[in-house]
């Protein structure tokens, strides 16, 4: 017992020791009447009014005037608070806010989705692990500590934030890694690789060039460098005059050095030896000249050339005589069929017989040919340079106007044709509902089992395909009513399915033909084509075709209808006027302005079933589509790598691999920061809450 008492006392003492001088707080109770002697609960039921509080505030000196004023205003105001919104409305607002938030969050996928849609090739599964050997640390990640010693060690490690399972990366390092997303890291790596490769290329190149022993090579290099430098210097004068001045000083220095030395003065040992040879050897003379020129260049004073001088130089350049650029005029003067260009007489050919043409040509053929080529050349020059012709040319131009007019017409026509084509195809594109039709499967009751069946499948539907083209054909034959259906412009098979025929130009040797020989030739050709008059036949043929295409007047007058009829009576004028129907002219023929060509605009039925009738969707014009068809993709025409590249599939999957859906953390970098931020906020909130509780 005593012991126990002792223990208790000592315990009490200890307590006293711990808090030897603790001040005892006064207890205060919330009550209206505060008595010095007792605590009572009177007035606890009463509510505290604002006025009660206000009264004390007014008296206290510490409270600011502002709060006092606010409180007074509050007391005087009679307004009540608004009722809260009803449940439906609050919920609607909540939903709206939540929806906005979610859509904003989901929108961050937009770039990735677009990128994937545009990608030429997608390889699934998306994030494949590297198949190489893994690090030991990763393999042993599942290992757990057991013995107390190990625990002690790991506690220490944890304390210093050292990595435990994967000792290669500390958490700090990991965070820094995560800061850069996978994609960015990839891009960065690629950049670095590229830079490194470029550097190594340049180094290798420099080394290689340095090793070259050829003096000539270095001479050329130096010359190029000098030229480059001069160009740069010109720019420098404009942009950076101070730098240019310094360069000038350097140049001046080199000039001085050059003047002092005997380097390029033809006084060295080499120069002397050359001087002996110079008498006989052309190259030696040239070399010496070059050296002297070098000296001259180097010792010349640098003067910044003014703009006027530049211009004069350019003009001088332009006035190089024309014959320098002339192509070699190669032609067989005898054979009229071998001439590439139309003579200016030919448009009138239709009214003159072939015989006359030939005789007329015989007389001044050579002169004409020469003149023609000159004109041609001029035309070409004008085309290329787009310059206003000089005065000399203008005189000539009057003469050649007819020819040039013809040529320009020809060119215009071509451009028109192409424009027309594109317009039509655009019109075709706009027709609604086409797109949908294309996607449809043609579902029927025929079951296809073999290739033969597929052929039959073709035939079954073919009649329809044939019918279509026949319709415009008959219309053309009748040559009445409506222009043929131009809206559905056919893509010509010749354009689509064949490679463009290349005109092979064989170089004719410019042989000098004697007058006699020429005459002989002409007579031989005449003899050979004595029986058949090819040209007039051709002209007749063409005019017949043209006539067939021309719209005829349809006479619908019924004699005797509404008036007297009989032999010798003509229907009156009003009737003829009213019932003779003129149809609109068809679009101009393609060969309208090509006198020596007939272009058939008929459609061949056998090929038509293989032709594309409308411009397919993604293409803007026929030329685009044709070019897409024209490039072959097979290994017969392309190298292996090209074929591999061109035929690579859009989606590649790995055999037997599960394709997981996308994982947000792999693709969106900002997500990480967002999550960590949120977590941090959460923790800080918790902390503050705990603090509040503790207080």
């Amino acid at each position, binding site marked *: 017992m005593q012991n126990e008492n002792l223990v208790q006392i000592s315990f009490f003492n200890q307590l006293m020791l711990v808090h030897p001088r603790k001040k005892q707080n006064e207890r205060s109770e919330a009550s209206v009447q505060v008595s010095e002697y007792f605590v009572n609960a009177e007035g606890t039921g009463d509510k505290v009014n604002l006025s009660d509080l206000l009264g004390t505030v007014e008296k206290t000196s510490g409270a600011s005037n502002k709060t006092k004023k606010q409180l007074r205003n509050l007391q005087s105001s009679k307004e009540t608070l608004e009722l809260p919104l009803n449940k439906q409305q609050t919920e609607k607002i909540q939903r709206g806010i939540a929806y906005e*938030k979610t859509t904003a969050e989901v929108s961050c*996928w937009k770039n990735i989705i677009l990128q*994937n849609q545009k990608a030429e090739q997608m390889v699934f599964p998306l994030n494949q692990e590297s198949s190489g050997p893994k690090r030991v640390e990763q393999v042993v990640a599942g290992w757990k500590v057991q013995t107390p010693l190990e625990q002690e060690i790991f506690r220490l490690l944890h304390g210093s934030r050292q990595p435990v399972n994967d000792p290669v990366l500390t958490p700090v390092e990991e965070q820094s890694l995560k800061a850069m997303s996978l994609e960015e890291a990839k891009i960065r790596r690629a950049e670095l690789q590229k830079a490194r490769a470029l550097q190594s290329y340049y180094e290798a190149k420099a080394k290689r060039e340095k090793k070259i022993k050829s003096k000539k090579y270095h001479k050329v290099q130096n010359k190029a460098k000098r030229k480059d430098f001069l160009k740069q210097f010109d720019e420098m004068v404009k942009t950076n005059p101070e730098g240019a001045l310094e360069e000038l000083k350097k140049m001046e220095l080199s000039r001085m050095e050059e003047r002092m030395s005997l380097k390029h003065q033809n006084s060295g040992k080499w120069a002397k030896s050359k001087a002996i040879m110079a008498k006989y050897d052309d190259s030696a003379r040239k070399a010496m000249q070059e050296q002297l020129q070098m000296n001259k260049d180097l010792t010349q004073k640098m003067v910044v050339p003014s703009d006027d001088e530049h211009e004069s130089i350019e003009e001088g350049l332009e006035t190089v005589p024309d014959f320098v650029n002339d192509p070699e005029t190669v032609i067989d003067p005898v054979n009229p069929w071998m001439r590439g260009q139309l003579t200016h007489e030919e448009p009138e050919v239709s009214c003159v017989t072939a015989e006359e043409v030939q005789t007329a040509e015989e007389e001044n053929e050579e002169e004409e040919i020469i003149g023609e080529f000159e004109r041609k050349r001029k035309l070409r020059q004008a085309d290329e340079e787009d310059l206003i012709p000089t005065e000399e040319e203008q005189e000539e131009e009057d003469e050649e106007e007819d020819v040039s007019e013809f040529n320009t017409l020809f060119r215009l026509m071509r451009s028109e044709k192409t424009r027309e084509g594109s317009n039509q195809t655009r019109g075709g594109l706009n027709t609604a509902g086409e797109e949908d039709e294309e996607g449809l499967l043609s579902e029927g*009751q025929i079951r296809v089992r*073999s290739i033969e069946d597929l052929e039959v499948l*073709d035939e079954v539907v073919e009649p329809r395909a044939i019918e279509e083209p026949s319709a415009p054909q008959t219309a053309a034959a009748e040559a009445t009513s409506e222009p043929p259906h131009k809206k559905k412009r056919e893509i010509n098979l010749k354009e689509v399915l064949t*490679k463009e025929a290349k005109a092979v130009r064989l170089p004719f040797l410019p042989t000098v033909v004697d007058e006699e020989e020429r005459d002989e030739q002409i007579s031989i050709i005449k003899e050979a084509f004595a029986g058949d008059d090819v040209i007039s036949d051709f002209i007749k043929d063409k005019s017949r075709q043209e006539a067939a295409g021309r719209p005829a007047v349809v006479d619908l007058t019924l004699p005797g209808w509404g008036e007297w009829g009989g032999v010798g009576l003509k229907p009156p004028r009003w009737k003829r006027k009213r019932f003779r129907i003129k149809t609109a002219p068809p679009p101009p023929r393609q060969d309208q302005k090509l006198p020596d060509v007939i272009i058939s605009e008929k459609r061949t039925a056998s090929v038509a079933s293989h032709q594309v009738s409308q411009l397919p969707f993604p293409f803007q014009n026929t030329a685009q589509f044709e070019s897409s068809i024209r490039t072959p993709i097979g290994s017969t*025409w392309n190298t292996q790598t090209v074929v591999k590249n061109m035929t690579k599939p859009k989606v590649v999957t790995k055999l037997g691999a599960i394709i997981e859906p996308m994982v947000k953390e792999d693709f969106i970098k900002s997500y990480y920061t967002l999550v960590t931020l949120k977590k941090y906020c959460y923790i800080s909130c918790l902390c503050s809450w705990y603090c509040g509780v503790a207080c």
Partner: protein
Amino acid sequence: MKVKVLCRNPDDYVRETTRDIQRVPRNYDPTLHPFEVPREYTRALNATKLERVFAKPFVASLDGHRDGISCITKHAKSLSTIISGACDGEVKVWNLPRQECLRTVQAHEGFVRGICSRFCGTSFFTVGDDKTIKQWNWEAPGYGVREEPINTILGKAVFTGIDHHQREGTFVTCGQTVDIWDEQRSSPIRSFSWGVDSFSCVRYNPVETELLASCASDRSVVLYDTRESAPLRKVIMQLRSNTLCWNPMEAYYFTCANEDYNLYTYDIRHLDVPVTVHMDHVSAVLDVDYSPTGREFVSASFDKTIRIFPKDKGHSREVYHTKRMQHVICVRWSADNKYVLSGSDEMNIRLWKANASEKLGLLSAREKAATHYNKKLIEKFQHHPQVRRIARHRHLPGDILKQKRELREMREARRRKEQNVRKHSKPGSVPLLTEKEKHVVAVVE
């Protein structure tokens, strides 16, 4: 004197081993290989024909159920395992390569309404008409041990669908409300409802894993976010949607299978108009599932066919049917993008190839190159009428064809009628509606 010597590197013409194919020096001079386009056109035509000839999509039929299949699900980690639930409450686990049933469980009384696999592939959940959620082990019990669920939760109402979270231990069920459950608890941690409806399907978004969408019986599709207290938004269509599926590669697109024979792809950011209307079925569409690549989806319909649609095209690229297949209730696309599974009324599960003419198994490099080349050729010449005709040809049974024609006629009549109404009314009073706009009744915030 300079002597030039011919020198050849044997590497250029000697094979490394005798098994290598001979090196063939090629000359790519275009004049030596004329008529590129006609030759390629012929090749393309042949490739198209061969593609149709080799199009044999049907792989296998798994029979063993004693009632119509109501739901199928894939194993999360194994390609060769699937589970199916039938209308008599039976659940079967199948091995696909061996085409046999591994395990049969009498899971529920009445229909098995939904099955979902846990993301780790250790267990799966079933819900049924008997108002229970049951969790089962993937591993079959030992010999002589009774099949017992790991966990059973008794709910207040019938559950009609279930789906599991992609990475966490929560799952969602639907019935009278959409409930989110923690695997460790026997009561839902949250339940959403918006008006009094019953829901037929609920799916987690596989990418944005906190997003949910469900199909309700008031013809609406409702969006949820599990982090929010209320549902997000709902879109009401003209007829009810049966099921929906999220695109696994594009977070904000989902496709719903509707009673009006169409499928609708929506962008959740713009719910007022569907992105694409997919039509080709001739009866109600009952199920839809995306391919794991997110490029295509497969749909099952009451018209006894399944169809494969590209995700951004209005019409299907493929239709599968057999004489014996009845109304297709459920359909799934395998996780390796190679196969499609369909479960139908007549108690069979069918395995189809996703690409009808694809050669299965390992391909040699030359085979691969040839298939790629052929595919590219068909793509290049796809607009040429002969190629297109052959590529598009599909055989359809007579009654479906008839229905299709009928439908087309009806659509045409409706269009004509509308046109006439527009013609005879004040200009502007009958607005021109596009196909996409026709089917959405309202978007409710």
